[in-house]
């Protein structure tokens, strides 16, 4: 795994235990979650450069001449784009479509604990986590919000809503959780850290109960594979 958290280098790991994510911010956050849970040597991270890019990279690697042993992907269940492809169910459908002709047995609905499938001979173990919790529509920020104290979350949420009411906020409603997270980060020491550095600084409880399902999924995914 690349340890470059300064943003100067893109996450482009060649590891055969690979986690593909949607963007550079996700790379930093998941790397820090891995570090906090002593998983940083278990897998590498690839920046897909967007949801479509991440999905294509994932799908393409399943046809590669050199396939990873384990291939995971984290996708937002982004409600931003209305229509059948948005939200957790829609995202699951798009994910499944990429695997329709490959010999994996995928259920109709995503697994609450994150999906993991062992591939038949020659195919990698694969897994998918739909942010925030494989059920709700949302994204990375919704997941991070579940990792901060409730009163802080309530107050930041209130502040973001109040700013909208007073007509001093310009963010789109689909980005509400982003606004709330960054409101919360505005009062931490130091104020205004980006998500990856904030995760590193312990501003999100990535070792606690609410992160457990995701961390367990990472552990289960990237445990050694017998080939």
């Amino acid at each position, binding site marked *: 795994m690349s340890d470059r958290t300064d943003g100067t280098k893109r996450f482009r790991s060649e590891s055969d235990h690979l986690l593909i994510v949607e963007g550079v911010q996700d790379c930093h956050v998941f790397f820090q979650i891995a570090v906090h849970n002593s998983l940083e040597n278990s897998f590498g991270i690839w920046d897909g450069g967007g949801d479509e890019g991440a999905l*294509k*990279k994932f799908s*393409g690697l*399943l*046809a590669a001449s050199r396939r990873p042993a384990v291939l995971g992907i984290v996708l937002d269940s982004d409600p931003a784009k209305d229509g059948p492809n948005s939200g957790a169910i829609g995202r699951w459908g798009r994910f499944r479509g990429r695997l*329709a002709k*490959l010999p994996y047995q995928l259920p109709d609905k995503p697994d609450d604990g994150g999906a993991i499938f062992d591939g038949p001979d*020659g195919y990698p173990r694969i897994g998918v986590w739909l942010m925030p919790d494989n059920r709700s529509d949302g994204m990375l920020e919704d997941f991070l919000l579940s990792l901060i104290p409730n009163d802080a979350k309530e107050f930041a949420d209130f502040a973001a809503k109040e700013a909208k009411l007073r007509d001093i906020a310009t963010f789109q409603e689909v980005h509400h959780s982003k606004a709330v997270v960054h409101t919360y980060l505005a009062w931490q020491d130091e104020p205004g850290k980006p998500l990856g550095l904030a995760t590193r600084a312990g501003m999100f409880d990535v070792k606690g109960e609410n992160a457990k399902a995701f961390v367990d999924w990472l552990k289960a995914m990237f445990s050694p594979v017998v080939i």
Partner: protein
Amino acid sequence: MLDSLYIKGFKLFEELNVPELSRLNLFVGNNNTGKSCLLEAVRLFASEASPAVIRDVIHTRDGDWETNLRNRSEVDDNYPSDAVSPMWSLFHDFQALDPSLMIEIGTGDEERRLRLSIDFYKRDDDLSRWVLVDPENDSIEVADEMLEVFVGFERTRLLRLENLFGRRGLLGRIPSPVDDRPKTKIISVGTDGIKRQEVGYLWDRINKTPFEDKVLSCLRLIDHRVEGVALVGNSERTVVLRLAGVSERVPLKALGDGMTRLLHIGLAMANAEDGIVLIDEFENGLYWGVQAELWPVVFEMAEAFNVQVFATSHSGDCIKGFERAWEKRPDLGAMYRLERKGSSVKAFSLPIVNLSDALESLVEVR
């Protein structure tokens, strides 16, 4: 049309399963994973192991080298023959010929398989037919080593190896009691194309038919001036072209290797109505842009003439061209990578959606 492919005990293939074939099938893979062997297997199957095809498949890979070496040597006449039969080279993993070995080539359906094995037969004059030697009671001296050919489970041919390869090996003329010609139209475009004599024959078959226009349209992918083709000369005929705006006739070879490749692929497609075309290393001699333009034409001809195509490639450009044509006609294509794991080779499927995603995200698929 073959809907699937099953090969067992043949050359590199211990057991190979290609569960789904389509009209156009592209096989990629590392060296020595059996891409050409797969094409040979299809030839043997489609010809129901015609002696001519058996000999050609063996000779192309020098499987008869020893027989030829000995048969050319005068000195060898003074020694008892101990040359191994060239048949040996068709069996998996260079195993010594043994009646227990069997080559199977066909589809997933066991009834649609060609089976080849070697056994010892003797002539029973009373019954006036060949019968299997009983190793308990018969002396091997009276026996002839035979290639048994089964189609499904029915034995259709018994070929005496000595006749098949002759005293003088493949170089000699071999009188054959059976019709050598393949049952299915099957045309092979090898890595270096089609043999010169065969080009003349294939051209004559389509000359001044509507198929000729299709071949010309292939040639125009490289040179749009092509207006006509003629084959001149007697035994070694030369292909010459009439080009728009050029007063002299121009030999095909003067226009580069790519033109010859296009002619061969076009001729194969135009001649193989209701049959099979095999193209080994599709890309040979072709500029990448031409490959991208040729694939749609091959798709179109395959559909129009009801031809099933098996092609191999090492080239990323060829794969890209195939993918673009296949994406437009998802029902017509299939692609596999032959992958070696230890001593066995497997066919790994590349569905169009994953192939397209791989090419777009620069994932290596060759």
